[in-house]
């Protein structure tokens, strides 16, 4: 017959309590006070990255092929990956033109720099990129997205851009590949190639985990 065995009471640090209570204690991110403690926490327990998503906030703007195009599903997949980590992900076309300020404020994104209504598409995307923490650009064709080259040379947003380029078009002798993207990859080294949707998902997920871990460690 099964008999319930009572846990031993122990006296440590001037207080008496049961060892079961101590053993069942689980360290959570909110108890960590210093960046070193946060670093050790992530190293010692690699699964902690899943738990820190509630303690950090990052916003992602996803640029790439529009609705009906070949890569639109991949863009949606990236958005889903980001949202699964409880972070903000937005397609620029979903942001209402006349309510940019209200939209950004409601999503917890800094919009204090907005001083006038922006109607031009390039300027509007640039303004959005200023507000968001990271901009993900999905390149699916060899030359049609050359307009992104505008952002690669803007210093205040270029460092926040992550480029994912399809392997099939990465060696094409196009303007984007030979010009802005080549320059961007040499300066910022934030260009990744992907072979399949699974490959892309894995890359994006790994990079987001790294970013969240970095934000978690540095936000003390």
């Amino acid at each position, binding site marked *: 017959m099964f008999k319930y065995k009572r846990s031993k009471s*122990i006296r*440590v*640090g*001037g*207080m008496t*309590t049961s*060892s079961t209570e*101590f*053993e*069942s*204690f*689980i*360290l959570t991110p*909110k*108890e*960590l*006070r*210093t960046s*070193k*403690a946060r*670093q*050790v*926490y992530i*190293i*010692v*327990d690699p*699964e902690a990255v899943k738990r820190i998503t509630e303690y950090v906030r990052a916003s992602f703007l996803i640029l790439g092929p529009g609705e009906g195009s070949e890569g639109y599903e991949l863009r949606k997949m990236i958005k889903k990956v980001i949202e699964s980590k409880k972070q903000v992900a937005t397609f620029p076309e979903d942001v209402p033109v006349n309510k940019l300020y209200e939209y950004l404020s409601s999503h917890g994104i800094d919009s204090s720099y907005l001083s006038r209504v922006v109607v031009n598409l390039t300027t509007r995307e640039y303004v959005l990129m200023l507000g968001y923490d990271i901009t993900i650009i999905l390149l699916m064709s060899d030359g049609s997205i050359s307009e992104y080259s505008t952002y690669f040379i803007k210093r205040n947003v270029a460092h926040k851009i992550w480029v994912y380029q399809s392997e099939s078009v990465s060696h094409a002798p196009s303007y984007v590949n030979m010009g802005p993207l080549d320059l961007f990859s040499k300066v910022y080294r934030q260009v990744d190639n992907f072979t399949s949707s699974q490959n892309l998902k894995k890359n994006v997920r790994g990079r987001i985990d790294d970013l969240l871990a970095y934000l978690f460690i540095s936000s003390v």
Partner: protein
Amino acid sequence: MIYWRTFSSPRSNQNLLIKSKVLYIGLSNIILVNMDKLEEIFESENTDLRIKTLSNKFRRFLLGLIYTEGRPMYQSDVLKHVNVKSNLLAYHLKLLTDSGLLYNKFERREGKRFSKYSITPDGIRALEYIGVKSDLDQITSIANQF
């Protein structure tokens, strides 16, 4: 959570399973380890106590924290890094000390006795065994640069 570590290249999984021992600690933690190899690593009589000590995430965290500090720490030093009750911390530090992974040196100041904890060579070996030492070394080396 299941920890599965292969220390050598076994001829078959069955061979490894025969040599292994399954330890149930709590309800959620199952640790499967090769006991022969573990005893070889620890070279100690209190292997079971060390496994118990390392099975707790908080104790692994404490061991890692004291290792990265690079100098002996008082309990109050540890409390600067982590916001937990002092008796809970004392319990876990005591287990780490009893299992020989930490060394506790008593110091007398103003009539009071203070414990000063530092990591032992076995503690460093334990961090190597759980596969975190090299990553922790990076924090220490970055901190030493400043």
